């Protein structure tokens, strides 16, 4: 690895840090939005009310059939048009991510909800609770506790997915690394550095998930 100059990383650290912050912030907001919307979609699908469940199923299957890049392009194009004026890249990207990840989260949550025993639902209904009460007080709390490891794993995937905002030049960690790489002519150093940073964060995340899966009894 002869004449590679790694000082380029050090020199651009503030800029890179800004990019990383954007990546993390985008991930965080998208996880929250994705889980909230995903839960709504899951409940719609399981509600037994045909128009709702059909809508949710169509939405989820449609989103899961197309690449994320296309969804990003869609929302970059659609959001300003729908609102009537140009909007910051960050918000278009955030909406795109929330809409995209919600489909994946809804599948996880749906499986989690279905894993709660029917007996629990019956117990709630026997005391006179309606559908939404049963979900809110009995099913969802149990479902979420079981699902936390998988939800976190999906969050790690989401973090990796945020690198795709590169295609709309939003200045996340990936885009910033790329800018530095090109302007300083240090492609090898920057991209390997980017890979290392992503690896450390994602690997640490998956170690955390493994700890979670061992449960409170470990």
């Amino acid at each position, binding site marked *: *690895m002869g004449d590679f100059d790694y000082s380029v990383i050090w020199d651009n650290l503030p800029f890179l840090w800004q990019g990383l912050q954007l990546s993390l912030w985008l991930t965080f907001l998208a996880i929250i939005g994705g889980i909230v919307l995903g839960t709504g979609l899951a409940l719609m699908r399981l509600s037994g009310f045909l128009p709702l469940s059909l809508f949710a199923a169509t939405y989820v*299957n*449609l989103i*899961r*059939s*197309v*690449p*994320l*890049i*296309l969804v990003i*392009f*869609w929302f970059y*194009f*659609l959001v300003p*048009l*729908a609102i*009537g004026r140009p909007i910051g890249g960050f918000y278009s990207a955030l909406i795109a991510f929330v809409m995209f990840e919600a489909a994946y989260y809804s599948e996880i949550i749906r499986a989690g909800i279905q894993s709660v025993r029917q007996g629990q639902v019956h117990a709630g209904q026997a005391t006179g609770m309606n559908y939404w009460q049963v979900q809110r007080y009995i099913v969802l709390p149990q479902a979420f506790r079981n699902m936390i490891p998988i939800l976190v794993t999906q969050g790690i995937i989401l973090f*990796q*997915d945020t*690198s*795709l905002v*590169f*295609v709309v030049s939003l200045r996340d960690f*990936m885009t910033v690394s*790329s800018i530095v*790489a090109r302007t300083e002519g240090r*492609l*090898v150093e920057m*991209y*390997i550095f*980017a*890979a290392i940073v*992503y*690896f450390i964060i*994602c*690997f640490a995340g*998956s170690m955390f998930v493994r700890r979670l899966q061992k449960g409170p009894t470990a």
Partner: protein
Amino acid sequence: MNYNWNWSVLWADPYLGWLISGVQWTFAVALAAWVIAFALGILIGVGRTLPSKPISFICTCYVELFRNVPLLVQMFIWYFAVPEIMPEDVGRWMKRDMPNPEYVTAVVALGLYTASRVAEQVRSGIQAVGSGLTSAAYANGLSTAQTYRYVLLPISFRLIVPPMTSEFLTIFKNSSLALTIGLLELTAQSQQIAEFTFQGFEAFTAATVIYVVIALFATMIAQTLERFTKIPGFVGKG
């Protein structure tokens, strides 16, 4: 919302040609990458479950490395960084004389990345077969290799047909990342059409519809495969 609808732009020259070319490149990347991913993924997945500690360690490292780095970063490293790291002649060949560098890079990057995912499916399939059956095979006098060949792999393959078809579809979706290194596959072409004609809605709808059709085909293939490989009476732990 001010928008001029014009669906005919999709059938007009040269845009229709662009779309078709995009679809062709998408298939070309996805299918070639799948061959690599499938072959390599099986090897690594089996390797992870072998009793030999060095082999399973190497395979685990491969999976963790390729899983924890975003595909986009991997693609850039293959396209921009690897030619620089290679010895001079190889690097020069990669940058100048290699035919279709964007295509080759995309296939290699996507193939190796997906291989790590396939490896995980294969591994969990083998582990789902259960230690009881493995013990029974060994007790029957089968060697390790024979146990894998006649018992573990046949059963685990049947168990992982659903997640594998999901990986197959994912590789089609991930082929869109090739546009970042300049390969004009389907998503890139739809973006081009949108920029040239200002008919973004039509362009992106076309791409969406095509991806949905691909997904439907993949699901149909999956269901047919599942029916053919069903083991009578066996529910499995998967």
